């Protein structure tokens, strides 16, 4: 699938516009992983998932998560070649091989790192790098630097070990 992307500044301004409107309209700050916690509160009675900041079961953060999926679908439906679901994953398949079990295991592990790390650090990319930094949060600056450095290091290591360099 050949995909072309917006120029970087259009993408950046578009993200900033959504982040700004969320705050301006609702008084909340953009963030995705609290939405995961809000969905956990649907199936778990544990108090952590029911903290007010998580937005509640089927609350606005849950709706944000559902919206992002629908937005991805919208992008597929409005792109030439239309919706063509596949487990193909570009360079990932070249590095690790095209085995669905291996892929499922690695991606689930990586996703678990995201889920665990983001709760530890009070947010993922959107919550910390976009929302937190805009408030001038030192904690968000630390987290942002940490995940960029860690991401660069780990990617170089993975590609070195698996012949992707």
């Amino acid at each position, binding site marked *: 699938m050949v995909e072309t992307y917006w120029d970087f500044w259009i993408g950046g301004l578009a993200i900033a516009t959504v982040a700004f409107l969320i705050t301006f309209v609702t008084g909340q700050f953009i963030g995705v992983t609290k939405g995961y916690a809000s969905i956990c509160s649907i199936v778990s009675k544990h108090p952590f998932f029911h903290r007010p900041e998580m937005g509640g079961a089927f609350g606005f953060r849950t709706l944000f998560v559902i919206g*992002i999926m629908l937005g991805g679908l919208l992008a597929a439906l409005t792109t030439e070649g239309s919706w063509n679901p596949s487990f193909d994953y570009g360079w990932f398949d070249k590095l690790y091989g095209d085995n669905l079990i291996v892929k499922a295991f690695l991606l689930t592990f990586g996703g678990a790192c995201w889920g665990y790390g983001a709760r530890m650090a009070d947010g993922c990319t959107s919550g910390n790098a976009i929302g937190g930094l805009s408030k001038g949060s030192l904690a968000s600056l630390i987290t942002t630097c940490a995940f960029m450095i860690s991401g660069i290091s780990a990617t170089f290591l993975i590609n070195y070990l698996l012949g992707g360099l």
Partner: protein
Amino acid sequence: MIRFVFLLFGIAFGYILIKSGVSNYDVIREMFLLQSWHLYGVLATAVGTTFVLTQTMKRLETKAILTGEPINMSVKPPSRNHLYGGLICGLGWAITGACPGPALAQIGFGTMAGLFTMIGAFLGTYLYGLQQKT
């Protein structure tokens, strides 16, 4: 009302995450291997613009439209967890090539690898939550 608004913002955000390349494994890989500056440009533009807009709202003591309340600009004090959590997130990013948001957009877009990333993110969130007392 706030839920409907967030559904709309979510749709816009998901669409943008696809169109800007943030949801593509190869684009993320190129960014981390310092082979392409596209995503650094996206991130820098997004962070810089949002910073200016948020600080402007702070200065003007803007009230949120839906609530009529002043916007809560409080931040959490930095802790070791912000460092360690960030490092763990970076490892997750390097493996999956997608943040928790873009993984959701991938699923809608038809890049079904995002399904595993999403399931993992739920498991990680759940595991962390169970370890907390409150």
